């Protein structure tokens, strides 16, 4: 998480709140001027000397979904309480000249914790060791709240512009062939292809049995949407590059596509991938992907997906695409149980396994073997080209 220090210029409460809003935006909350205004109004409505109250109040105003609501406390502490760890010598220069004394006492907590660093680098990330050098490039540095895996790989090297371009082409084609589905039922439509005989005959009664007004029907579109879960554990590292590019392509092809990464944890990356600014997207990804290249817990992550996201994201018109080699450290029956749960939502499940492309590969990984009965399609793919060849299969499911 990036921690923003107070700029020296901050002179009043509004300024500081604006700084906090910038910090929230940096961490993925969608807050704007309206929220800043509401926060200030909220501060007036509560006892603004109580940190707990301020936290609750800001949380109610700024967080707008369950995810962000759960993360808010952490962000709040990181911003307002973090300065306690900064060097004392510099922390002095904070109490400001012309700040009205009234406002200072009213916003006790803001005052007390707002120690400013004299070099007011707005975007500088938090340092855990104060003697560590921070590059002046202003790039975010990763601070894992809980480190699952010491080896951390930057996703930047995994996504090159050419890859994205190629993957986008393949992915877009795939996404389209999966998405375009017609309903089997026919509905009335002004510009339909077939005749609605029932209705036409009924209407013909008023004209003495002469079918003058013709009613038509067509099969309405029932677009299918994709949910992709990508395994980025150690055993998948070689393929992660191409798959990630593929995911980016899928997500940009269709607004409703949803994408997740998992290793020991599950992270939703749809929003990050959708970011127009590729570099920023990759930065956000690397923030989320601490633990990239570590062990896998497929069962646990599927369970988490079922608990947290499936209710909203998966229905009878979804295709869940799991990209993983099936090597798992969880008990094998766990995958089967979670897939069964997922299957109950009526979705189709496609498992794409890069190892399957090898000669003589049998799904011996026990988790994989247990998962087989629940899969609608089990396909090999270890390169972009092979992914592209999935098209006819996916069109049929």
């Amino acid at each position, binding site marked *: 998480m990036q921690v923003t220090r107070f700029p020296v210029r901050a002179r009043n409460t509004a300024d500081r709140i604006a700084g906090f809003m910038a910090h929230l935006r940096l961490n993925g909350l969608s807050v704007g001027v309206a929220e800043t205004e*509401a926060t200030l109004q909220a501060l007036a409505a*509560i006892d603004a000397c109580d940190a707990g*109250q301020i936290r*609750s109040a800001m949380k*109610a*105003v700024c967080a707008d979904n*369950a995810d962000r609501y759960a993360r808010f406390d952490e962000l709040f502490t990181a911003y307002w309480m973090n300065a306690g760890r900064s060097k004392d010598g510099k922390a002095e220069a904070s109490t400001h000249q012309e700040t009205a004394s009234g406002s200072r006492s009213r916003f006790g907590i803001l005052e007390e914790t707002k120690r400013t660093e004299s070099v007011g680098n707005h975007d500088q990330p938090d340092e855990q060791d104060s003697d560590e050098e921070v590059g002046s490039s202003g790039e975010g540095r990763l601070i894992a709240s809980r480190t699952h895996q010491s080896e951390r790989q930057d996703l930047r090297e995994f996504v090159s512009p050419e890859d994205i371009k190629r993957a986008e082409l393949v992915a877009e084609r795939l996404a389209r062939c999966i998405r375009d589905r017609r309903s089997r039922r026919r509905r009335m439509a002004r510009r339909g292809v077939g005749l609605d005989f029932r209705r036409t005959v009924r209407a013909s009664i008023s004209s003495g049995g002469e079918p003058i007004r013709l009613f038509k029907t067509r099969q309405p579109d029932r677009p299918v949407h994709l949910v992709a879960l990508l395994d980025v554990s150690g055993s998948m590292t070689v393929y992660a590059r191409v798959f990630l590019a593929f995911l980016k392509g899928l997500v940009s092809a269709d607004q409703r596509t949803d994408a997740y990464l998992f290793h020991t944890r599950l992270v939703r990356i749809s929003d990050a991938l959708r970011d127009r600014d590729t570099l920023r997207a990759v930065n956000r990804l690397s923030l989320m992907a601490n633990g990239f290249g570590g062990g896998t817990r497929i069962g646990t992550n599927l369970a988490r997906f079922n608990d947290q996201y499936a209710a909203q994201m998966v229905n009878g018109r979804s295709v869940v695409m799991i990209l993983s080699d099936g090597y798992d450290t969880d008990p094998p029956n766990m995958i089967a149980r979670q897939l069964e749960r997922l299957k109950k939502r009526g979705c189709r499940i496609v498992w794409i396994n890069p190892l399957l492309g090898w000669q003589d590969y049998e799904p011996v990984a026990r988790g994989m073997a247990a998962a087989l009965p629940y899969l609608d399609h089990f396909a090999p793919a270890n390169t972009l080209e092979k992914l592209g060849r999935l098209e006819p299969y996916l069109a049929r499911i």
Partner: protein
Amino acid sequence: MTWIDLKSDLAAAGYIASDDLTMALHLSMALGRPLLLEGAAGVGKTQVAKTLAEIKNTNLIRLQCYEGLDAASAIYEWNYQRQLLSIRAATDQGVSSDDIEERIFSEKFLLSRPLLEAIRQVEPPVLLIDEIDRADEEFEAYLLEVLSDFQISIPELGTIEATSRPFVVLTANGTRDLSDALRRRCVYSFVEYPDRRTELAILDKRCPGLNARLAEQIVGFVQALRKEDLEKKPGVAELLDWAAALAGLGVNDLAQDPVTLQASLVCLLKTQGDRAAIPTEVAQRLAGKAA
């Protein structure tokens, strides 16, 4: 009114709210914004609105959302039958068509639905829009318009301004994701299952006279049950039902009567799968732990 007062008022009315929830409620009143509550089923989201109406001593107007809910059943509708009758009567009397039109598009022929009703009250009511995520996205967009201006325009009549600004509570269960536009206009709170102490307090409020030891066992049991792998976790409402059931059955100690305990679980477990997941042994283990 400060939020501490609000909290004690809520408690007095029988609703034990967490700090975050109380603050959200307080702010939505102070800022005049709608309050959006999310959380699992049965954590008491709807009850917030009911309690609020009670402590404010105003009407509760409820709009239950469902798929296909449209403006006609949420905002207003013309009373067509009555209009037709009136036209028929008027033509018999030989009234001119302009007069007929004037007559049939008047307030007398307007059926007000919850949203229109809410803004026409004398005292500001509590407007509960329940399970907004079940309604279609088009309706959500319409709702945005009503909630931001608190006025409703009826083409035949003109614009109806709010006589009082209702206090709006929206609840959602996560059937689908709500639009950002709606979220941003609201004060948000995510309601969690209450912790042990809160739940005891709730039980004490709602089922007074329950044996203190049994109350603790009940809460302990339900809290442990929520940690099990269930499709549908029991909420506060289920807990209260169960407590009432146990009191009615004359149970004094959960661990003593396995058969009754197992039978009474119908109050807590609402699917076949969950029933199968908690056989007598598991129930006994949980009861043993809770005791």
